[in-house]
């Protein structure tokens, strides 16, 4: 498995996937952090780490589904383009192992993106002058929620990208996911539970509430989020297994 995973990274060495992901992340961070800076300047009393986490959770809902779609599409499309699925199978590479290696590769890239984002948040918070010590627990919870949601999205995207050669459909799903992730909070509770992309804000440790016509940022209890995350991890595993089974049965 380790060899298959390292080979996936080897295949990506000149595909510029990481620079592309970092460009995407930069655009997101610039957009979100400018908005946070303006918010801090307008209302100095409300300046806090919670504002940054809440803002980034919303922006992640838009950006990360599309970034996941792009990363997975690149990892799977190179096999479609080179017609190498059959070649790999004839070299006694188990289809299931190959599928898992690609999933792990995409997951590690997205983990890198999330860690870079976390680092940027911490640096911005300290540099802004409004905030002091970095709240490690809050940021760890934010990272956890983002990663769990991304794992589900990756499993879904990989299934589509592997099974459907035309990557327009996978990217269309990514775009729809990004849109649902952004506006997910406007939907009723029941609809929010169904859309996996809405969990970028759903699993965020900070939520926004309106009280006496003022927006407040409230830190959530860890309990309900953990149970939702456990369910989501099970969904990710299910999607992964279904996708792997489907892909393994396809003609190369």
């Amino acid at each position, binding site marked *: 498995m380790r060899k298959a995973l390292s080979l996936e990274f080897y295949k990506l060495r000149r595909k510029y996937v990481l620079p592309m992901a970092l*460009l*995407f992340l930069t655009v997101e961070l610039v957009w979100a952090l400018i908005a946070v800076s303006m918010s801090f300047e307008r209302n100095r009393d409300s300046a806090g780490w919670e504002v940054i986490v809440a803002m980034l959770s919303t922006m992640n809902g838009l950006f990360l589904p599309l970034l996941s779609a792009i990363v997975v599409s690149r990892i799977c499309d190179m096999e479609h383009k080179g017609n190498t699925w059959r070649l790999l199978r004839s070299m006694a590479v188990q289809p299931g192992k190959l599928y898992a290696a690609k999933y792990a590769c995409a997951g590690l890239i997205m983990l890198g993106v999330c860690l870079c984002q976390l680092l940027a948040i911490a640096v911005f918070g300290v540099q802004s002058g409004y905030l002091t010590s970095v709240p490690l627990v809050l940021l760890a919870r934010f990272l956890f929620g983002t990663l769990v949601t991304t794992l589900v999205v990756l499993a879904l995207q990989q299934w589509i990208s592997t099974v459907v050669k035309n990557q327009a459909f996978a990217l269309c799903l990514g775009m729809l996911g990004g849109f649902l992730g952004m506006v997910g909070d406007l939907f009723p509770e029941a609809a929010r539970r169904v859309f996996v992309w809405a969990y970028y804000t759903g699993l965020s440790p900070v939520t926004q509430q309106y009280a006496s016509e003022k927006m407040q940022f409230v830190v959530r209890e860890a309990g309900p989020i953990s149970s939702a995350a456990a369910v989501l991890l099970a969904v990710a595993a299910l999607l992964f297994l279904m996708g792997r089974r489907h892909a393994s049965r396809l003609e190369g």
Partner: protein
Amino acid sequence: MIKQCFQAEWLKMRRSHIWVVFMLLPLVSVIIGWANYVMNQGTLQKEWYSLWSQVGLFYGEFFFPILIAIGCSYQCRLEHQNKNWHLVLTAPVSLAALFAAKLGVVATLLLLVQAFFCLQYVCGGLLAGLSASLPAELPGWLLRGWIAAMTIAVFQLALSMRIKSFATPVGIGLCAVFFGLGMYVLKLGLFFPHSLLTVGMGVLSQEGLDFGSNVVFLLMNALFGVGISTVSLRRLRKSDVLA
């Protein structure tokens, strides 16, 4: 020659089912925008204009530019496979005709998408019980939207011809959307292709453009269109294709 190239490009789209994507994304943006309008009719009281502000925001600001990017990537996908660029570039047709044919196919698809979007907007308004007549600015929004969409298509086509990956130009397109939004906020909307779409379609401000602004809008589109396609064609002529 262009006609034959166009027919050949159109033929390549057969059985691609790309129309599903071109129908689905506008439909979703209209449904969400329409639902938002219906739920907030108390606050959104400008009837057709308010409905446009809701459906147009999602469509013009996010879905349409991405749709253009996907369409252009798809146009070049076949050429990037099986060393087809070599085959295409050795055909007895000019590079400009090839580029124009690809752009023509995307432009035709985008025209159909605009017409479909307009139909959904009118149906949505009637379904919401709007009784006033349609906004006089509607044809202008749609036409300017299509013109700006072609400028974005030139930009995306240039990227997709250069980059072998299907997804990367789409990602760059999304980054450009946000850059364009920033340019619009800074009141520099006429100086970037993606913000030209925001200005032209009246996505964030439903006030129509005056004569002078219309002229500047058309000039900027022509400038970007000609400039980007010239650079792209020059590159295609001068450098080897890595098919």
